[in-house]
């Protein structure tokens, strides 16, 4: 075990996989960061510091600094993968999915099925996502709802440094395209990460972050920490919560959610995306369909409102879910008669 920041867990995992497998290549804007400058070639090594030292170690063929051209980055990741490489593409902010949706949704996601199973497409698309530091409407969004809705794409939302490592290694070794939604606000989070160079976490297996009998809180990404804080606060009042960290939203660990709700009879779904057609509504529907008989109260959703992400500090905090909002939702399920 080593204590690592989330961002370093990501960097180290990619680095190790590049050492292990010469098919792994990295591409994205400023992943070298300094090409064509006096201070280059590597001046920054990725704006999130998730590719520092890569260029020196692996050179320009495998560490591809791209112009500002998200469609080309996404499409090239698809082409590299179809041609036998294992690209790890960085879309600097998940919001820029808007620029390159076709190459992800109509191309990468569909190859394997549309080509009758004759191809694999082992592309990893890293998309730093989420709100928390007032980056406003076009640099703060949660996009899990779009990508989870895409048949063919696996979607990962690591909530801890260890998970970032184990899930990313799984993503790189996986034969299907994976959208890896790393939360920008978690980059500086530190935690124990296994040293084992083959440490992977299989997809579709949720993590029980807290255990309790009274209510089930389902969360992903940055929302997991908020849910844990809420659960800890509630525990001081004698209310016990299961906190289920989904880890991957596609495939979804339905069993973990349903097993928990069968015991608690109360469910609160926390989601950083707007409330319609989202993980929150999807999981609420799952529970209504498959755990109806266990429910003691209506399912509660804690989500932002149906608006873009606002800029001002006061507005962004009002927009985002919070531990207090989650705890209030849990209490509401407990007070239901």
């Amino acid at each position, binding site marked *: 075990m080593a204590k690592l920041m989330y961002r370093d867990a990501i960097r180290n995992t990619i680095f190790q996989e590049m050492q292990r497998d010469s098919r792994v290549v990295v591409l994205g804007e400023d992943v070298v960061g300094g090409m064509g400058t006096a*201070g280059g070639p590597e001046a920054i090594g990725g704006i999130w510091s998730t590719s520092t030292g890569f260029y020196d170690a692996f050179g320009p063929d495998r560490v591809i*600094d791209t112009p500002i051209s998200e469609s080309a980055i996404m499409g090239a990741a698809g082409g590299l993968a179809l041609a036998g490489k294992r690209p790890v593409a960085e879309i600097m902010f998940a919001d820029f999915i808007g620029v390159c949706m076709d190459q992800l949704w109509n191309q990468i996601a569909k190859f394997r099925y549309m080509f009758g199973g004759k191809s694999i497409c082992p592309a990893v698309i890293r998309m730093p996502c989420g709100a928390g530091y007032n980056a406003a409407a076009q640099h703060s969004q949660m996009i899990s709802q779009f990508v989870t809705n895409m048949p063919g794409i696996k979607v990962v939302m690591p909530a801890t440094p260890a998970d970032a490592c184990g899930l990313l290694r799984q993503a790189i070794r996986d034969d299907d395209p994976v959208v890896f939604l790393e939360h920008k606000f978690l980059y500086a989070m530190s935690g124990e990460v296994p040293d084992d160079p083959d440490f992977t976490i299989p997809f579709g297996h949720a993590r029980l972050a807290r255990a309790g009998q009274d209510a089930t809180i389902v969360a992903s990404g940055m929302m997991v920490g908020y849910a844990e804080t809420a659960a800890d606060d509630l525990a001081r009042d004698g209310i016990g919560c299961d906190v289920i960290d989904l880890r991957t939203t596609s495939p979804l660990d339905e069993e973990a959610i349903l097993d928990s709700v069968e015991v608690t009879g109360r469910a609160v779904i926390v989601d950083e995306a707007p409330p319609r057609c989202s993980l929150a509504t999807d999981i609420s529907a799952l529970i209504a369909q498959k755990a109806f008989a266990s429910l003691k109260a209506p399912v509660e959703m804690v989500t932002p409102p149906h608006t873009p992400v606002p800029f001002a500090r006061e507005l962004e905090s009002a927009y985002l879910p919070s531990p207090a909002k989650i705890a209030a939702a849990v209490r509401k399920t407990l007070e239901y008669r």
Partner: protein
Amino acid sequence: MQLNREALTRAYRQMKLIREFEERLHEEIQTGEIAGFTHLYCGQEAVAVGVCEHLTERDKIVSTHRGHGHCLAKGCDVEGMMKEIWGSQEGLCNGKGGSMHIADIDKGMLGANGIVGAGAPIAVGAALSNKIDGPDENGKLAVAIAFSGDGACNQGTTFEAMNLAVVTKAPAIFVFENNHYSEHTGVDYAVGTRQDIASRAEAFGMKVWRADGTDFFSVYDTFRDVLEYVRVPGNGPAAVEFDTERFFGHFEGDPQRYRGDGELDRLRAERDCLKIFRKSVTGAALLDHADLDIVDADALKAIEDAVTASRAAARPAPENVLDNVYISY
């Protein structure tokens, strides 16, 4: 140089106002009072002002993530902008947008933009609207201008917008501000045509111009020709590339490790559009130092007032999150 004293003073004041706005933000941001990402326009003032001094309120502009200069040059209210950057309810966008999303539609300022390359198609749409509205009583069209960086010129949206403008003969002007960097990456690496963005636009079938973006007069005189051409119905779009410099980091907090030794000092000494302007107007005895010093003091005071007002301005309340939506769930 066909500008009279008044016009010269006004142009200088606009540039100085942008400079002081940005220099002040650079300081204020260090204290942590201002939230979010801020990209400063310092060093590029002559472009925004040399372009916008020609425009009327019917002409539209679409800006970038580095938008403060374009906004001020197009006439956005200094205090309203500063309050927006401060996240105040009294800001131009009620604190919803912040530095990267300042807009003032009445002024013909259709928005700064957080998405690199997103502006050019929007400008073409505005230009098509101008074309539909037709020429004024002098037979001239209103134009729409897309400001884009050397980085944005690599985006497919920019290419598509240029072609759409050409085939529809839209009165659009693509202003490329080549400040040699897109974030940490050099233009020599990222733009395949190296230091030449105008040739790309030319390949799309447009008339193009090039000028030194650190010299107000070079920008102003060149842009007069560009405008004269695009205002003629039937001529269609044009592009102009300005060679310019950014004095601060890509965003506030950028360590700027991509810069060469002494690069910033050299740029500030040799490529400062305000110094160059002062030197040429005093040299030609069009204005004297005392005139310019008055403008300097005046600009500084306007910024000081805007900051004081922003500090005291009303903050948004949580319920304001739901303003400007047609439905909530």
